[in-house]
Each structure stands twice: as C-alpha cells, then as structure tokens.
C-alpha cells in the first residue's frame, strides 16, 4: 500500500507558491481532499514547524492565503544578508491616514482631513502607490467624491489574516498612554539634541 505523505506534499506546494500563497480551497483541490482535511494537514505541518526547533519556517495566514515565512527569531541572521538594509517604513502621516481608512472605510478624503485636521493628499497618494489603499467607489451626493478602502496588500503588509484581526479601536484613550507618548516624545527630542 502506498502511503501518501500529506505534510510533505503540502510543504512542497507552499514552498513553490512562495509569497503568492495558497488558499484553503486551492490546497484542498490539489490534494484532492475536502477543506476540513486540508485544514488538518495544514495544522499538522504547522505544529511540526512550531515544535521542531530545527525548523526555520512557519505557516502564516496573510490576506486569506496560507504561505511559508521564516521564523521571526532568525530575523537577525537574515538581515545580515539583505541587500539594502534600510527598508523604508511608512511615515507618521501615512500611518495616521491609513489607520483612519482602515477603521472607517469606505471614507472620502474630506472626511479623513476632517479627522486629521490637515491636508491629506500626499499620504493618500503614497498609500495608493504602495497599493495599501484603493478607490472603492464614489460617495453619494454632490461632488461624488472618491471613497477609499484598504486592499489585500494592506493585510499582507501588516501581517493580518483579515480586517477582523485589526486591534480594536480604543473608545477612550487611557491617560497612561498619553504619558507614555509624552515620554517617547521627550526621548526623541533628547536624541535630536544629542546628534
């Protein structure tokens, strides 16, 4: 009798798919099993990855697909091999704009600017070019302004399975947080002075 090594096959598939990832449906189809079984095989493999310390990869769920990624604890070694280590991160303006879009989508530019209190054309442009947000229809009423929403790339970029995984928006920000923020500010300020 032939024994099929499901986890071995799954590892081959995930490896080949790379960061394109595979959906549960795709995995089930290729393995010719139902999605419940496919899910078990995925969990089986991921358990092996998590428990076996010799393993350097794990399965992550990003934007609705399963893909392999290196374990976070090995990041220091990988960074040594990266071509250009100064990876660009999003600016504060872009992050704020993105946060508003993420939580209030679909939303117009005017509404975003109302919340931020500043013009937001440039951050919106950056976010669109980075494919983190997209035009998602038009608002009703006069002007029919563009509405913005987040993309799949947004989920991938922040390591999210789906929008539901976004941390809850704080209804009331605690004073403690404000203090921390102030401390951080002065820390930064000191840094600026010392350089």
């Amino acid at each position, binding site marked *: 009798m032939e024994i099929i090594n499901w986890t071995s096959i799954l590892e081959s598939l995930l*490896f*080949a*798919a*790379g*960061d*394109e990832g595979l959906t549960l449906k795709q995995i089930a189809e290729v393995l010719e099993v139902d999605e419940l079984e496919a899910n078990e095989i995925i969990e089986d493999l991921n358990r092996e990855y998590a428990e076996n310390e010799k393993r350097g990869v794990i399965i*992550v769920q990003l934007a609705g697909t399963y*893909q*392999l*990624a*290196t*374990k*976070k604890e090995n*990041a220091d070694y*990988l960074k040594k*091999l*990266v*071509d*250009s280590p100064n*990876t660009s*991160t*999003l600016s*504060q*303006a872009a*992050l*704020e704009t*993105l*946060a*508003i879009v*993420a*939580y209030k989508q679909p939303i117009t530019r005017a509404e975003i600017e109302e*919340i*931020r*209190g*500043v*013009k937001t054309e440039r951050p919106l442009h950056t976010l669109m*070019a*980075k*494919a*983190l947000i*997209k035009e998602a229809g038009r608002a009703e009423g006069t002007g029919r302004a563009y509405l913005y929403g987040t*993309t*799949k*790339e947004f989920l*991938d*970029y*922040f*390591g*999210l399975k789906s929008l539901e995984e976004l*941390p809850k*928006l*704080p*209804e*009331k*920000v605690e004073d403690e*947080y404000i*203090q921390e*923020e*102030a401390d951080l*500010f002065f820390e930064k300020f000191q840094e600026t002075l010392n350089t």
Partner: protein
Amino acid sequence: MPYQVKIDAFEGPLDLLLHLINRLEIDIYDIPVSQITEQYLLYIHTMKELRLDIASEYLVMAATLLAIKSKMLLPKHEEDFHDVDQEISFEEDPRDELVERLIEYRKYKEAAQDLKLMEEDRSLMFTKPPSDLSGFAKDIQPSKSELNVSLYDMLAAFQKLLRRKKLQRPLATKIARQEISIEARMSEIMEELEQLKGRKNFYDLFPTPTKEHIVVTFLAILELMKRKKIEIEQQVNFGEIFVGAIEEGRDVVGNY
C-alpha cells in the same frame, strides 16, 4: 522660493495641540484655553521667525483658539435668562467641539502607533518569491481571455516584490570586485541615456548597491558634467533629479 518642507515634527494643528496638552499635563476635558493658546501662538511665532511656510491649517486653528478664548472671557450676561435651563448653557461650552475633535484624532493616532508596531513585527518575517514552475506546466498556450485583474492587483504585486527583501546574490561579491573604470562607466551611462532618448532619474543610474560602484558612477557623472556631455535638472529643492544627454551638434563650449 519658499522653504518647502513639512514644517514640523507634528502632523498638524491637532497633533501640536495634543502635544502641548501632554507637555503641560492638562486635562483634555478641561483645557485652560488661554494657556494653551499662548503656547500654541508661541509655536506659530517661532515658525515665522524661522521663515518657514506655515500651513494654513495651523493659522485656522490659531483663529479657532482665539475665538474660543474670547467666548470664554465674555461676561455671561444671558445667564439670568438661562436660569431655568442651566443644562443647555452647560452643554454649550465653547471648547466642546475642539475637545471632541482632539479625542477623535487621538484615537487614530494611537491606532497608527499599533500599525507601526505591526509593520515592524511583520518585517521580521521573510518570504520567498513564487518558484518558477514552468517545468511542471503542460505546454498549452494561455488563452487571451479570462483576465481578471485590476491595476491595483498589478501595483500590489509590484509592491510585494519591492518589499520582499532581496538577499544578496551569490555573485554579488564577485561583481563588486570586478573593478570598473570611471571611463568605462562614463560610456555606459552615455549609452544608457542615448538609448533612452530622454532624461533618466538620477537614482536609476545607481543600480548596483556596492560602495565602489556608487563612487565610480558618481565620479563618472561629475566628469560627464564637466565635459558637458550630460545635463542635470532639478526643479525644486529635494525634488527628483534628472540626468539627460546633451545632444551632439548642440552648441556647447567644451574643451575636449
């Protein structure tokens, strides 16, 4: 030309106000308007001293603060009128709208902070590009129809590619050591520019991220400029720099 920079370490007037509130350890629900207005105006004033462009939003907020301040200073003549429904006059605290905006903004400022942490955490994971599976494919022509992608899908794919941290190529060390002369790099650059028949972004002339190559390229560009073979154009400070070949036959004084 006005000094075109993002004027501050703050993301706008609301952000500046939040900062002042934190620094002065003020209760956001009971803002001492005259104190905060004074601080705010000091900041604006300093920006003016430094001859920085002040975004109009900052001035609008200054006006708002002054308006609130004067409203609060107004003797409350009508109080006798409102004896009966004091609650209404209580609700009409001139600061209410501002406080509401500050609190709403602060929510997203914190959410942005969360996103930043998530961004950082995500960057610890490395992925790999999809393997080339052509060896496994049956040799059928893909049909022309059934395209189902948008411009965003293409952009997203491109961003993913850029984001994918490229590990050094195994051959990189060899290439770096293979010395390229300034003269050779000069002809390479000219060839690139002439082929393009237009201007090229300055940064695109530095495709190889090794120090040697960057230095050689830079010297080559300087030399080409000196020889009036290329021209460099930058429209605004900190704007993009473009490099273009000076067409032959164009009247150029040169000493070569």
